[in-house]
């Protein structure tokens, strides 16, 4: 279980987050959505150990997180590959402290998983955007993390590649993969992928809605249930728009 208790983050006088409490672990993919600047990324950075909380704490299976943790990994919005390293060496970076033989086997296996075996020796400059993002994902997965943090990982991709990557993520995570915390702006992406969606308000970031998604997979975007959830989330994220629509209707 990942548990967040009374988490507060301030940058000087600016309160970016909290107090916030959240606990998850039973669902495979939890998505956090919210307007730009509401504090979503601050939450992700706190979970990744890249920021220190001003108050409160995060625990992973009872162990307090106070910095980068070997069982928590991150795939960022941009692939963030080291341009001087090959694809295989970039992935290997995440498990640099493993024995050499185990490293090689793990890299091979994860590159097979993301269908990039043929590009193991390629340099990042030789990859397309989607391929580079898959390398970023492979690097995040190679160490068998308990919690995988995804910070809008598909936002820079074209719509077709994005849909393909979403399917790919569901395949990779499967039933025995890590718990995933996904940050996104894309409401449809959130509904397609998630078992639970948390809507944040802010700053400072606070939970506005906590919604379990029980739709069967694969999830058709045209279904009435899908559209209903979408409208509900849109109303949370764009309250002015709904008010305006109601005013016109009245």
């Amino acid at each position, binding site marked *: 279980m990942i548990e967040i208790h009374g988490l507060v983050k301030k940058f000087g006088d600016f309160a970016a987050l909290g107090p916030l409490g959240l606990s998850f672990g039973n669902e495979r993919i939890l998505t956090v959505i919210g307007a730009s600047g509401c504090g979503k990324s601050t939450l992700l950075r706190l979970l990744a150990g*890249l920021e220190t909380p001003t108050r409160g704490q995060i625990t992973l299976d009872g162990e307090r997180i106070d910095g980068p943790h070997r069982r928590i990994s991150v795939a960022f919005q*941009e692939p963030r590959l080291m341009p001087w390293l090959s694809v295989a060496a970039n992935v290997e970076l995440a498990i640099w402290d493993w024995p050499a033989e185990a490293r090689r086997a793990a890299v091979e296996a994860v590159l097979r998983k993301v269908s990039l075996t043929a590009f193991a020796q390629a340099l990042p400059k030789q990859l397309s955007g989607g391929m580079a993002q898959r390398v970023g994902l492979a690097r995040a997965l190679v160490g068998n993390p308990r919690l995988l943090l995804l910070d809008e990982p598909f936002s820079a991709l074209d719509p077709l590649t994005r849909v393909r990557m979403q399917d790919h993520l569901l395949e990779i995570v499967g039933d025995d993969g890590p718990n995933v915390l996904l940050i996104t702006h894309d409401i449809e992406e959130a509904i397609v992928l998630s078992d639970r969606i948390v809507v944040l308000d802010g700053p400072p970031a606070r939970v506005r809605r906590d919604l379990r998604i029980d739709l069967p997979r694969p999830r058709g975007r045209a279904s009435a249930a899908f559209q209903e959830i979408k409208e509900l989330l849109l109303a949370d994220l764009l309250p002015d728009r709904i008010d305006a629509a109601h005013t016109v209707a009245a």
Partner: protein
Amino acid sequence: MSELLLNLVRPLGVPWPARGLAARAQAIVRPLIFPALILLVWQGAGSFRLVDPVLLPTPTRVLGALYEMLVSGFLNPHLAISFQRVLLGFAGGVAVAVLVGALTGYSRFWRSIIDPTLHALRTIPGLAWIPMFILWLGIDESSKVVLIAKAAFFPTYLNFMSGIARADRKLIEVGEVYRLRGARLVTRVLLPYSLPFLFVGLRQSMGVAWLVVVAAELMGASSGIGYVLLDGEMTGRAQIVMACMIVFALCGKTTDFILARLAHRVLRWQDTADRE
């Protein structure tokens, strides 16, 4: 028409299709036209006694003197000792620069302690150090090598330090997420990131090392190209002085070419337009 279309859709960074032999020959010949013209005017001015050939010997006389010094074997030991001084000074200077640059680039604390003093020392003219180095180290090899090392230190230090200090925060964060800290973060992320900066510094340091070797060889030397140059001046043989200048230019250009090729090889991962 098809070639025009091909050119229009050519992705950035992909070389143009191979040009004809004539075009390539033109690219080689064009930069040589201006120096050839200068040499021609210079030769003419000397041959027709428009200038005093004692003060400005003709190119043929200079090249003749150079050829003579090379063929007789006179120049070889001087060339060897100059190379030795430059390479030793360069190696010493850049080795210290890389260590100190890594420290001050990585740590704000050490930068605030060390960097201001180094900048103050940098502003002292190189020639002002000569008496001190002679006093401290005598007039033998060590004072010359240290003078070159001191000059070679700064370009590499400044470039490498700023490369490390300005490293991409996003890549550093990746390192941090995967628990890379201290020396591991430096060697696996910061050092490779700042290699392009380091090579700029190394090429500048090598250039400075060749500039300073002349000053170093004026410090009571009895060997080296700088000594031969000084001897040419003392004995009123301008053709020797100019031949030594050509030797310095060739040595500097050769070492710079080697470093440039090395940089090209090491930095193959860079996603640049590669216009060099």
